[in-house]
């Protein structure tokens, strides 16, 4: 019976299938984007740099009373050998990048004070899990503009441990450009650095010289010592539980503690870092962590509401169209009734035809929808949208529900009319 209906009215069926496909693709595209947007925006926000710092437990206690600047020496350091442990924490997968920092006070050849900063640039790490990571400040300083030369490339063939990058301010002061050699006097040793790049950080880092970690440590016999570690991690926005835990994790109940520990809050990742790095204190950098949580929430909420609007539109559209197509078949329904068909049988027939068409249209719509989602993902973020399987049942339920909602009242209404009236075409 259904087959017969199709052959006769394939054009009308096609129209229904097409419009259902449109509505379905709209709903599934928006849902897919909405579910993935959090991850995508989170990744984009990493451009602000590290959102967690790890420092030694005892920092800047004693300050030199003769030092008018008020800068003290840090009396404790983190161990360089603990650096590898960062990627062993529970939330290692969320750590996008990290870098050790050591600040060494030194002097230029002319006797001016300058700070030499030692760090990783693109330090290659092969993790026991099989992952590999290029860690370093290269992606933690996305706002640096390299005005001359290049980043220090630890993995390049021509790399030498005396390669250095100078901030524009210090480069100007020393009159140095790429290729020059700069003589630096540390408190214990001297060194000659080769300028490979000059950067514009737009901040106080423009006064500093950046070299590899070991190179900076050598100036002061600080082998194996690190002053701080910057970490950039993908985090979940804070909520009440996270705030409570951040103040004091031991105040949580066992269940709360587990929930907090197993959610990627900035505070729980910081706590886990503290656990693996000896004698350290880790805390979220509020300027970055709090703000990104806020932006993430707002963006997700915005997308949710836009998706709701689209889905309402799609739902109403489908329902509307189904009602229209049922009304179109008024003559057929009237004829069937006049011929003595039972109400139930008619309803069943019409409904099953429409549902079948809707399912076919819906299936095509899913493909279209996922395609649109990928177009959006690639154009805006340059990466694919991860399709969540949950989208399919949600949209399927929507389409079927709307189809039923659209057809049942219309069918019932038509069946209440006198067959004679309907056949005559007066409604």
């Amino acid at each position: 019976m259904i087959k017969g209906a199709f052959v006769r009215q394939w054009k009308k069926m096609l129209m229904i299938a097409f419009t259902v496909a449109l509505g379905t693709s709209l709903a599934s595209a928006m849902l897919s984007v909405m579910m993935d947007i959090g991850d995508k925006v989170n990744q984009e926000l990493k451009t602000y740099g590290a959102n967690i710092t790890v420092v030694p437990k005892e920092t800047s206690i004693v300050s030199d009373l003769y030092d008018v600047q008020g800068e003290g020496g840090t009396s404790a350091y983190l161990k360089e050998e603990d650096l590898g442990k960062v990627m062993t924490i529970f939330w290692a997968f969320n750590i996008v990048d990290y870098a050790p920092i050591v600040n060494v006070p030194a002097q230029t050849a002319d006797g001016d004070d300058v700070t030499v900063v030692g760090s990783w640039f693109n330090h290659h790490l092969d993790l026991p899990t099989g992952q590999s990571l290029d860690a370093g400040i290269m992606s933690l300083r996305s706002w640096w503009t390299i005005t001359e030369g290049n980043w220090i490339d630890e993995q390049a063939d021509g790399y030498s441990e005396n390669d250095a990058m100078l901030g524009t301010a210090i480069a100007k002061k020393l009159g140095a450009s790429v290729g020059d050699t700069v003589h630096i006097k540390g408190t214990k040793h001297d060194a000659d650095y080769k300028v490979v790049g000059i950067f514009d950080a737009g901040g106080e880092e423009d006064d500093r010289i950046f070299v590899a970690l070991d190179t900076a440590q050598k100036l002061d016999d600080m082998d194996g010592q690190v002053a701080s570690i910057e970490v950039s991690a993908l985090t979940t926005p804070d909520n009440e539980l996270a705030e409570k835990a951040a103040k004091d994790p031991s105040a949580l109940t066992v269940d709360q503690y587990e929930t907090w520990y197993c959610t990627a809050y900035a505070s729980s990742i910081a706590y886990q870092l503290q656990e693996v790095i000896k004698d350290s204190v880790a805390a979220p950098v509020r300027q970055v962590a709090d703000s990104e949580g806020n932006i993430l929430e707002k963006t997700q909420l915005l997308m949710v509401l836009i998706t709701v609007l689209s889905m309402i539109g799609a739902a109403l559209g489908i329902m509307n169209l189904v009602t229209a197509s049922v009304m179109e078949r008024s003559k057929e329904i009237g004829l069937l009734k006049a011929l003595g068909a039972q109400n139930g049988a008619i309803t069943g027939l019409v409904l099953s035809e429409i549902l079948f068409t809707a399912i076919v249209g819906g299936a095509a719509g899913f493909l279209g929808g996922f395609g649109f989602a990928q177009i959006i993902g690639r154009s805006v973020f340059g990466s694919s949208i991860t399709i969540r399987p949950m989208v399919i049942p949600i949209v399927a339920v929507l389409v079927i529900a709307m189809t039923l909602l659209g057809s049942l009242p219309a069918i019932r209404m038509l069946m209440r009319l006198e067959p004679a009236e309907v056949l005559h075409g007066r409604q």
Partner: protein
Amino acid sequence: MISASLLRRRSRMLIALLSVAIGAMILSGLVTIYYDVPRQMGAQFRRYGSNMIVLPKEEEFSAEDAEKAEEVIPSDEVVGAAPYRYENVRINQTTVLAAGTDMDGARASSPYWNVDGDWPAQTGQLLVGKEVAGKYGLKVGDPVTVTYTPEEVYGAGSDTEAESEEEMILDSEKDFTVTGILDTGGSEESYIYMSLEDLSELTETDGGLDILELSITANQDQLKDYADKINQTVDHVNARLVKRVAQSEGTVLTKLQALVLLVTVVVLALTMICVATTMTATVTERKMEIGLRKALGASDRSIIQEFLGEGILLGAVGGLIGAILGFFFAQGVSMGVFNNSIVFRPLLLPIAILVSMAVTGIASMVPIRATTRIDPALVLKGE
């Protein structure tokens, strides 16, 4: 003629109208959101703090210079302005860096400062960085005495143990109460913060400012213009963008706008196709009527005119209803997400109506023209 036929087809028209209204609702709602997102989201990015700083050209600059610099920027774009004056002070014989600032300005330009306790509101109140609080074992409510030794004493090369009665007299001190402990996860935790007036009282001088931090709602290009203007018109200062904040904001905000744009385009395209399809279907099912009229001698032109007129009227009414609903939706979104009202763009209403009319008009035209070209006899036969 037009409205009479419309009334006859009440239910069918209602369905078509609903479809057009939905389309117009999505159109006006989404486009309103799209135009509003940069402003609303941009304001959210101010949580990252100041995106412009004003530094002294030489040693320091005056409060008047700071005011002049701030005046360059339209006041409705200044989210926060915080002047800072730094001095070395002592607590319990050890040196600590004190910052004098305008508390309201600091709070507005650095929203991420997390204060356990309260911000200082009166004279004699102190905001202590977490690191400093830990070092001295300070809690909210504790009293603390801050001592200041003028620079000349240091210059003489003496240590803080006063060597003579005269030098002791030169030290000034002020009693404070710790009202709040500052937690930022950054360098602010090693400072203590008091009002500029308190710092002046403590140091017994009206010192100059060391930096002015500004949080401004403007994109990178506008910020650069403001910075240039300040550098040209105000002496003694050098204004500069905080690259980390300004540039990152530019990057992310652009992507978010692109996202909303693309989403809007996709949704609109699909919705308009849907509306067009519905209109086409509505006309197609009246094939018989068209065939009959032609057979009775109606001219192609009059038929086209009537149907087109119906379609456009439908588009206008549906467009109006949908556009209004769309505004309400956009307002709901804006309030729900940003807690802020949208900027009502009256131009959008007529545009939405016009677009609806255009879509329905074109969508009606195609089947009508096709149908009028067919031989009426064939149409009436039902093929």
